[in-house]
């Protein structure tokens, strides 16, 4: 991935940092005092049972969800609440959704060039050239002129990754990117993500793919009931989970 680190900043400033983040949905306390940082080049995998707040955590990072208290910093800059500043910071964080969310009214190539043209003000020609490179990197360049509905789920998700990459993000958030896919398509998406990780992309990945977590994660975070219960290297976490809740969770997914 592009190594455009013009900013003169401390090497240890995390790309993403959450400090004491709390959030409620009505009376439901979904995020409880979340502290988390993701360093440049790290791949942090978040696992945990359904409803534990993983998606909400992901979505607060680019402010698709607001937070009640605490703060979220992107390379040391506090996430603004609205307007151009918010948009500018959002552009630096890519997001890949469980349901792909490709723009249904646009062709594949137009999906990828919209951000670069609208936000980065690139020319159509420049944006298209780069988009084609990105599409071939994720292996869907032959589909460039089709519309999303004509592609398989796996292809759509790879386009979504290309669309995120086209913004040259400082990090990409993945919220269960393979959960909506038929089993035979999961591999092709995970392969693309693994390649990205190897190339040094900073990634925060919510997933149930434990093999991916074992192989690719720099760190695993286990969430339950809105809290971070455990945080460790993949080897330690999978082989010697410390908390009872993590042990139960791992047993429950190995059970089937």
């Amino acid at each position, binding site marked *: 991935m592009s190594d455009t680190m013009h900013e003169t900043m401390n090497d240890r400033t995390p790309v993403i940092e959450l400090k004491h983040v709390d959030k409620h949905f009505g009376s439901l306390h979904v995020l409880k005092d979340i502290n988390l940082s993701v360093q440049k080049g790290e791949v942090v995998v978040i696992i945990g049972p359904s409803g534990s707040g993983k998606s909400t955590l992901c979505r607060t990072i680019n402010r698709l969800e607001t937070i009640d208290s605490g703060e979220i910093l992107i390379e040391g800059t506090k996430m603004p609440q609205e307007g151009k500043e918010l948009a500018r910071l959002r552009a630096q964080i890519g997001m890949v959704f469980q349901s792909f969310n490709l723009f*249904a009214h646009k062709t594949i190539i137009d999906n990828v060039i919209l951000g670069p043209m609208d936000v980065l003000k690139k020319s159509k020609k420049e944006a298209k050239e780069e988009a084609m490179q990105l599409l071939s990197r994720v292996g869907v360049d032959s589909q460039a002129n089709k519309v*999303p509905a004509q592609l398989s789920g796996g292809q759509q998700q790879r386009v979504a990754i290309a669309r995120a990459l086209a913004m040259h993000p400082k990090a990409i958030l993945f919220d269960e990117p393979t959960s909506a896919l038929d089993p035979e398509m999961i591999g092709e998406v995970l392969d693309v993500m693994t390649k990205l990780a190897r190339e040094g992309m900073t990634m925060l990945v919510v997933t149930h793919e434990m093999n991916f977590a074992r192989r690719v994660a720099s760190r695993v975070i286990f969430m339950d009931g809105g809290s971070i219960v455990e945080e460790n290297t993949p080897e330690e976490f999978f082989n010697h989970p410390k908390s009872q809740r993590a042990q139960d969770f791992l047993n429950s997914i190995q059970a089937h």
Partner: protein
Amino acid sequence: MSDKRTSVKDALFEPPGPKTRRVIRIATVVSLAAIAALLWVVLRRFYETGQLDARYWSVFTRWTTWRFLGKGLLGTLEAAAVAGVVAFTAGFLLMVMRISGNRILGYISTALIEFTRGVPTLLFIYFFFLVVPKFGIKLPAFWKVCLPVSISACGVVAEVLRSGVNAVPKGQKEAAQSLGMLPHSVFLKVVFPQAFRFVIPALISELVIVVKDTTFAYVVNFPDLMQNAKVLISNYDALLSVYLVVALIYIAINWLINRASVAAAGRTNRYAVPAGKKQ
């Protein structure tokens, strides 16, 4: 892909079995017979009352008649097109106000939408015909038709557009936001284009209503198709024949509008999610 989509008919009804097919066949024959009988009765009455006499129809052998009707048709089309554009623009603005999240704008827009939807077009026509001139505002007859007709339609257009916006999945907006697009770009480049495609059929129905509403032009003496028909009728005393021909012309216009909408829908089908595919 569009062939994989289930049509509304397929979704609502099972394919008929042999028994149902027989019932359908019988019902078809019976209703065709009923329609034929009715037509015969009507024609027979026309014949008996002399409405089919050549003198009522000879008016159509003169090409000046057709030219006069053609002029009226042009007036109708012009008024309908302009009223359609004005109604769409006003409806779009009302819709944006309503979904803007600003409470005051929302109330104003809701009030205007309910008002324009609730009041019959004819009352707006009378307002522009009788009340507006009292304030010393002199509008050409063309606008005395177009404005009331568009006002009467704009509330419906606003609600139709809003239902389209609500039908766009939330993920589309979120994907655009996470690219760093500004709110107006998100709306204009991602949400609204999809909303618009969803509601093309409903907008077309409203356009048909606009075309029909322009017939109120006779109130303000704007020479549309209806007004010119009335002139012909009083000049030639050919009530039935002229109305019949004019009705056919209106049917033709609205049929063409509907054909256009089917064509437009066919083109946008390409973007639909095939049935049975999760997104």
